[in-house]
């Protein structure tokens, strides 16, 4: 588990402004074993922090595209692929920190979601304590990997303030 991934390719990078916050979206895509296409969006914000999201293209136009399940039983390979993309971003930007939220299922509360538990377990097992400091907020099902190359000791509060202004968590 968490060894093999799907081949992925970068689609593009585009600048956007959401609620007066400037960000760059790095978009990637890959195909699962059933040839289903997935999109990975890595939103790069200030402080070199990337919010990582992914969804199946089938759900692209759904309002809750991040909450849906595909039911294809390829979750571990999808997570491995997303991680490989994060590693590629880290090669480009050695100061990159990563944040992600375990979106609730359609009938689930926002706190301590099933996805959050899974991501926390995977990250705890596969990301060592040398390069990243790991923090989480169970009430929001949010996890953050803070790059230790960063010298700003108050970066965590700054990132929280930034995300609070954008996301309704």
């Amino acid at each position, binding site marked *: 588990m968490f060894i093999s991934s799907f081949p992925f390719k970068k689609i593009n990078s585009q600048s956007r402004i959401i609620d007066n916050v400037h960000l760059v979206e790095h978009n990637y895509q890959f195909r699962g074993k059933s040839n289903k296409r997935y999109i990975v969006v890595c939103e790069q914000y200030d402080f070199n922090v990337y919010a990582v999201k992914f969804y199946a293209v089938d759900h692209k136009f759904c309002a809750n595209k991040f909450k849906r399940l595909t039911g294809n039983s390829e979750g571990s390979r999808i997570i491995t692929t997303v991680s490989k993309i994060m590693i590629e971003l880290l090669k480009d930007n050695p100061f990159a920190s990563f944040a992600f939220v375990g979106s609730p299922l359609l009938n689930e509360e926002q706190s301590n979601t099933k996805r959050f538990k899974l991501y926390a377990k995977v990250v*705890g097992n*596969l990301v*060592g*304590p*040398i390069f990243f400091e790991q923090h989480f*907020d169970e009430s929001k099902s949010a996890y953050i990997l803070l790059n230790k190359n960063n010298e700003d000791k108050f970066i*965590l509060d700054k990132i929280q303030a930034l995300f609070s202004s954008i996301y309704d968590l």
Partner: protein
Amino acid sequence: MLTSSQYNLYENSISYANTLAGLETFLAGFKRIVGKFLLLFCYYTIFWPFVLTFALWLNLERRSFQKKMKRDFKEFETSNDYLKHKKVLMDLKSLEPRLKRISNYQPHRLPFGVSYTLNNMKKMTSTLLTVISWSESRLSSLNHAKFASANHDVKFVSESELWKNRNSAYQYWM
């Protein structure tokens, strides 16, 4: 990857700890079987050249090892450094009770040759216990958050928690 000097430091500390712990077990067992007086008799008739040579070797090894210790304890550069460090620390910790028994020896009541040897074993043991304590303190920075948060809902995951919950079958990605 670990630099070769660091690798030697770890390998040497494990070798010395194994040697001393093995010797402690041998001496305690031999003493229990033959008794203290017969043990001393065997020492003066058969073993003393070997034991004194061992004591001199241990003395020289300890001095060179202490110099290396000061020089070779560095920050972790990769996750492999960390994994290797954890493995060595766990091996050393498993030998720690036996090393502590050596540091409780009272060699000053024994004849010169024996006390010299036991003193050198004690000094080497003390050096190895220092390696264990340095190795533990090297991890302490990973157990304290560098980036603090005013929000109490945000919790830091320390190195010890990560290690406790980790499945060692997985390799670190980063």
